[in-house]
């Protein structure tokens, strides 16, 4: 997102140059633009942070009750760990001065002071950090659903530190920090690839290394369902995520003041809604056809898929295109879930079909549908050109997949990857935390 600042500042600079006559007054006007834009990002950051309980509820609701505490805890603690790690390390890696040109940067630990000019589009580093850290936490927390029911809690803490501290910021720099992918014209408005596919492919790596939960596939490989234990919570989670996405996408415009910004923000918001609606509807229709019954859990996944798919391109497509992108996403997510079942990969909440596969779709849909200008005035490189989109949409997922695959492999080697068979059967809540999610309720966790 950040690299769009330059263009933006240009517009504003020229505007502010006109304020010659009344300097103090124009100062005040700039202050109001400044306050507006920072307020807007603050508001959006709050919404994105609100996505955290959304993820927590979706993942918890879609899993067994015996692992609910563990999943909740992962979503709580990856935010805590993520905030601190991103503060000390990640933020500096993602938006720092290049050390290896285009590939690796460092901008120091913590948050720099504001040394900009007070005017529209000039974001305070404190609120920029807040907005950015919420994105980092999103990338991290996507994985907790994919590894539900069998990952050792310590392994999750390590994973969560590594992804928010290193993996996400480094590939983030390639695009939003102004690195090589940005230079070739790769476009990812709010992070279909940069955020969601990183989480989704990290989750896929984890699911593969971990192996499926006991009982998820019969000896002959037939998939067997382990149904979620609390669909009301999962549904609430999806609604919260939908609402939170109004921070995620519109906020990535990074400014609201100035006609162009105001218009962009509102188009983004509506496109986001249309894609979500189409995703939900088409996922429902497809499961209705395939399984004879409309399934809530897949419609919910469809909504999320639509949201992920529109994330990269919501500022560059029309309303109708947004509906198309969402519809395709809703279909893809259903097929993605089926594909994992074929491959005997156990991803309990559909983290990969939703965030990985549809993150990819978002990146590619950008090349198909969205229209952007050149990356710099006069440059012949167009943002969102097909080659750049394909490159970015392949390289970043691979980066996330490979590094995480290795990490989980190491954790496996040192024996802290997966809980014992007995612990898995009894549930991680008792095993890892000595706490039950629903004390007193009679629950029949076995079938």
């Amino acid at each position, binding site marked *: 997102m950040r690299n769009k600042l330059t263009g933006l500042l240009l517009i504003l600079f020229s505007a502010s140059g006109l304020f010659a006559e009344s300097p103090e007054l124009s100062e005040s006007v700039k202050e109001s633009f400044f306050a507006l834009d920072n307020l807007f990002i603050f508001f959006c950051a709050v919404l994105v942070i609100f996505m955290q309980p959304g993820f927590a509820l979706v993942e918890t609701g879609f899993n067994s009750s015996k692992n609910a505490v563990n999943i909740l805890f992962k979503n709580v603690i990856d935010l805590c760990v993520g905030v601190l790690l991103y503060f000390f390390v990640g933020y500096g890696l993602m938006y720092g001065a290049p050390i290896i040109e285009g590939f690796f940067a460092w901008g120091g630990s913590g948050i720099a002071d504001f040394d900009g000019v007070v005017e529209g589009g000039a974001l305070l580093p404190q609120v920029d950090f807040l907005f950015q850290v919420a994105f980092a936490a999103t990338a991290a927390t996507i994985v907790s659903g994919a590894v539900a029911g069998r990952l050792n809690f310590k392994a999750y803490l390590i994973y969560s530190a590594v992804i928010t501290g290193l993996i996400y910021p480094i590939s983030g720099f390639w695009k939003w920090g102004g690195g090589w992918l940005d230079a070739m014209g790769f476009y990812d408005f709010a992070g279909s690839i940069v955020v969601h596919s990183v989480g989704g492919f990290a989750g896929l790596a984890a699911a593969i290394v971990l192996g499926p939960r006991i009982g998820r596939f019969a000896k002959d490989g037939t998939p067997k*369902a382990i149904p979620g234990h609390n669909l009301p919570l999962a549904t609430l989670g999806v609604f919260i995520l939908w609402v939170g996405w109004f921070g995620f996408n519109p906020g990535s415009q990074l400014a609201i003041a100035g006609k162009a910004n105001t218009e962009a923000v509102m188009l983004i918001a509506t496109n986001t809604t249309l894609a979500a609606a189409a995703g939900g509807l088409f996922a429902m229709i497809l499961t209705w056809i*395939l399984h004879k019954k409309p399934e809530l859990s897949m419609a919910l996944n469809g909504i999320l898929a639509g949201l992920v798919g529109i994330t990269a391109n919501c500022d560059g497509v029309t309303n109708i295109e947004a509906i198309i992108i969402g519809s395709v996403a809703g279909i893809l997510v259903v097929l993605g879930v089926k594909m994992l079942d074929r491959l005997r990969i156990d991803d309990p909440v*559909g983290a990969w079909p939703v965030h990985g596969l549809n993150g990819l779709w978002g990146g590619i849909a950008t090349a198909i549908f969205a229209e952007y200008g050149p990356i710099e005035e006069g440059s012949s490189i167009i943002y969102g050109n097909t080659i750049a989109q394909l490159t970015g949409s392949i390289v970043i997922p691979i980066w996330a997949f490979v590094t995480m695959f290795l990490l989980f492999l190491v954790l496996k080697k040192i024996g802290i990857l997966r809980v014992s068979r007995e612990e898995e059967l009894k549930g991680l809540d008792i095993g890892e935390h000595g706490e039950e999610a629903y004390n007193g309720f009679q629950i029949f966790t076995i079938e």
Partner: protein
Amino acid sequence: MKLVTAYIRPEKLNDVKEALGDADIKKMSVTNSLGCGQQGGYTETYRGVDMQINLLKKVRIEIALNEDYVETAINAIIKGAKTGNIGDGKIFVTDIIRCIRIRTEEEGEKAIG
């Protein structure tokens, strides 16, 4: 004294209670149960995966009775629970050797009712 234990369809509980009530049998204990039987279960899909549900929800009723009420109880249960389809359930009768009412410490046949 006998114990009549019946496994029935949950949605039939009210009818059974009514039929028993009509036969003046008003004391019983009810628990949730999951049953396997001829009914065999059914197949649902969850996220596109077939899900074989073969423990079906049943309700278990226990009624402690004096000998001469057993037949009445069985008839009432059948009346309330029978649909004629597989899955209607079973009734088992066992012996009770002693019966005590905690409140009064009474024992035997007078304690049962």
